[in-house]
């Protein structure tokens, strides 16, 4: 057996690609839940963003306009969630479920109506996709032993959104723990009454949290349809929003932990694509179906609380009502 083969560079490379949408969605959920708004609508927002980014990119030929459209679609759903759960103090879970249903149905319906391709968008070509970018010196360094291939294959050669997502990790950490906005955001998720009596708007902070969540979900969805793949297909998020939520719990609502958690999920998805490597490493054949199911099994295990106690933000899920 050769366990090192399990960490083949090509597998690690796709790990990064597959982890990116999870990471963005996970950070989106992190902002929202740190602000006290539970959001199980990550899935729906990503799906809507995936469709609209692909559709607009296909129509205009510009992936950047597509990205904006995706973010816009996701933000619209965020606004619905915000109005329902912050302004009208509705149930956050129900609002999230509604958003997931809405996105699942509407994307296919509109896709069929616009493109008549069975609920897909046309395949994206040229400027309609985010192309891999080669980092400086990638070719020159590729001959350097070990580090060379690591740099040129694993680190270089991703689309811009991958780097954006990775930069979001320290960015999120910095915002949360080093800025006034972060302090207030964390406080509003723990004890909104403290924020309120300190003279800061609870509603404003929570809408900001939900808004950031919308932008990040929008990028995640756009990456799925215009970076990872070339176009939108029905239900292409395939539960990634829920996996991101599981990763968020696994990460205990911390940005760096979120990176490691989503990389783990990304790795499970990546390795499932290469049963040959697993067979080579373990010496026996593992059912493809089992491999495909692994990320979901891990999700269930995490959500069932097998990874130790994870304490969510204390005011999470509860609408804030000013005390008499």
């Amino acid at each position, binding site marked *: 057996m050769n366990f090192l083969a399990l960490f083949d560079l090509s597998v690690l490379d796709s790990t990064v690609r597959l982890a990116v949408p999870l990471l963005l969605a996970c950070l989106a959920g992190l902002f929202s839940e740190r602000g006290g708004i539970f959001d199980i609508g990550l899935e729906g927002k990503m799906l809507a963003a995936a469709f609209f980014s692909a559709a607009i990119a296909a129509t205009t030929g510009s992936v950047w306009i597509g990205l904006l459209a995706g973010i816009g679609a996701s933000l619209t759903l965020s606004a619905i969630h915000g109005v329902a759960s912050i302004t009208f103090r509705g149930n956050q879970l129900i609002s999230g479920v509604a958003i997931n249903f809405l996105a699942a149905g509407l994307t296919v319906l509109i896709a069929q109506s616009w493109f008549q391709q069975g609920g897909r968008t046309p395949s994206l070509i040229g400027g309609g996709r985010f192309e891999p970018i080669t980092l400086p010196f990638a070719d020159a360094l590729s001959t350097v032993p070990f580090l060379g291939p690591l740099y040129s294959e694993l680190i270089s050669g991703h689309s811009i959104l991958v780097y954006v997502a990775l930069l979001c990790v320290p960015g999120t950490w910095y915002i949360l723990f080093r*800025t*006034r906005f972060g302090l207030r955001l*964390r406080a509003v998720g723990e*004890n909104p009454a*403290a924020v*309120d009596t*300190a003279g800061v708007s609870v509603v404003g902070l929570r809408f900001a949290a939900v808004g950031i969540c919308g932008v990040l979900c929008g990028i995640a969805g756009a990456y799925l349809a215009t970076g990872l793949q070339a176009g939108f297909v029905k239900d292409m998020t395939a539960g990634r929003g829920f996996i991101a939520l599981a990763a968020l719990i696994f990460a205990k609502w911390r940005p760096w932990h979120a990176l490691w958690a989503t990389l783990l999920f990304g790795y499970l998805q990546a390795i499932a694509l290469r049963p040959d490597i697993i067979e080579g490493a373990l010496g026996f054949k593992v059912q493809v179906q089992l491999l495909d199911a692994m990320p979901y099994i891990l999700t269930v295990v995490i959500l069932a609380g097998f990874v130790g106690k994870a304490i969510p933000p*204390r005011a999470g899920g509860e609408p804030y009502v000013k005390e008499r």
Partner: protein
Amino acid sequence: MTATHPAIELKGISKAFGPVQANKDISIRVMPGTIHGIIGENGAGKSTLMSILYGFYKADAGEVFISGQKTEIPDSQAAIAAGIGMVFQHFKLVENFTVLENIILGAEDGGFLKPSLAKARKSLVELAAEYELNVDPDARIEEIGVGMQQRVEILKALYRQADILILDEPTGVLTPAEADQLFRILGRLREEGKTIILITHKLREIMDTTDTVSVMRRGEMTATVKTSETSPEQLAELMVGRKVLLRVDKTPAAPGPVVLDIQNLRVVDDQKVERLRGIDLQVRAGEILGIAGVAGNGQSELLEVLGGYADGTGTVTLNGQPIDLTGKYSDGRSRRDNGIAHVPEDRQREGLIMDFAAWENTAFGYHRDPAYTSGMLSNNAAIKTETQAKMDRFDVRPPNLQLAAKNFSGGNQQKIVLAREIERNPDLLLVGQPTRGVDIGAIEFIHQQIVALRDQGKAILLVSVELEEILSLADRVAVMFDGRIMGERLSQDTDEKELGLLMAGVGA
């Protein structure tokens, strides 16, 4: 300091919630550098008035003047800007933040935390020196005691340069020693020229600490007097609107045989923390045993295990018969069958179902009683008749058995629970915080009922965080600290000072 203008003046403040007039034409003047008490029963409108001052509510009519300037207070931001600081009864702190983070929250300087934290740390040192308010700036709120947490609230207000400090029922969660310390701090703040408004229902605090006092009753300000020119009796009368007996009127106890015998009782909670660490207690027929202690030292767990909704180990006998502490026969129903009645500490969560009508609440726990059933069905007519009679005997107001429990005042809710439990003629009555959130008039009545039950030869276990209540109602006092009994005293042989030390875990 020449006090030309009052630090704070309210003129004709009125506020209604629907048909309820919470504040009616209230006017007060508080001079700078004084401590002004506001006393009144629950629901008298004290909190509404303070919420208006802090920008939580908008008054329907009336004006607020701060240092002679007419001031609009549409939100908390405006209140802070006007120099008003508020220490709420339930602290508004973020539990997993540090002291420093809580202090700067909402009063940060600029978008980045580092300079704000540094500035706050420096000014915390100065404030600590000026007002003797020492706290560890890096401690997390969840790791420090309530007394410290309250200091953080005061520091929060001072950090925002508050000149007027409003404290709402500040001693509710404190030990007597901590309360004394708080009042020393308040005295110090007064010396430095701060104006303090102290809201409380405790007459003694008003008498000991304030310069002037205003009394509120049913939304109106009934009087404002100099504290030195009034007496507790007069204040109580002003609060209730009639003469009130402040002391419990009872004859010496005539204890009979042991009813409840507890040996080495232990309870471990969900977090595997031992909450009761070997309790030995006896309660005799015809006596009231009071359990004193700061909230959270195991009193709740004691009531829960005796009431049948927590598991424990050890030996507990009732009239010589052992009762189960785990398993099928350790539930509330078995306890009632054993002859234990329970008036729980949290009447709104454990004693009543708030959305259900008074008559339904009267049957809970006893709904299997043959008198309340006919075959498989419940005999609602019988329950209602019984409820009406109970409501009359216990003077529940309004005597409307269809009214949902949540629509009764705290005192009347407690009377409903008490009527249900006492009238079952139990051998042992467990009572937790019988008068928490209950107004003075109702307190008197509830105390009389408990004493009457004792005089019928029943055993009563009373848990209360109000030391005054324990001392006046109980015949014998046991003090709990950290899951243990620190000592037992006859109530006529002890005083608040001695019990206070025991409550703090000192001596035995």
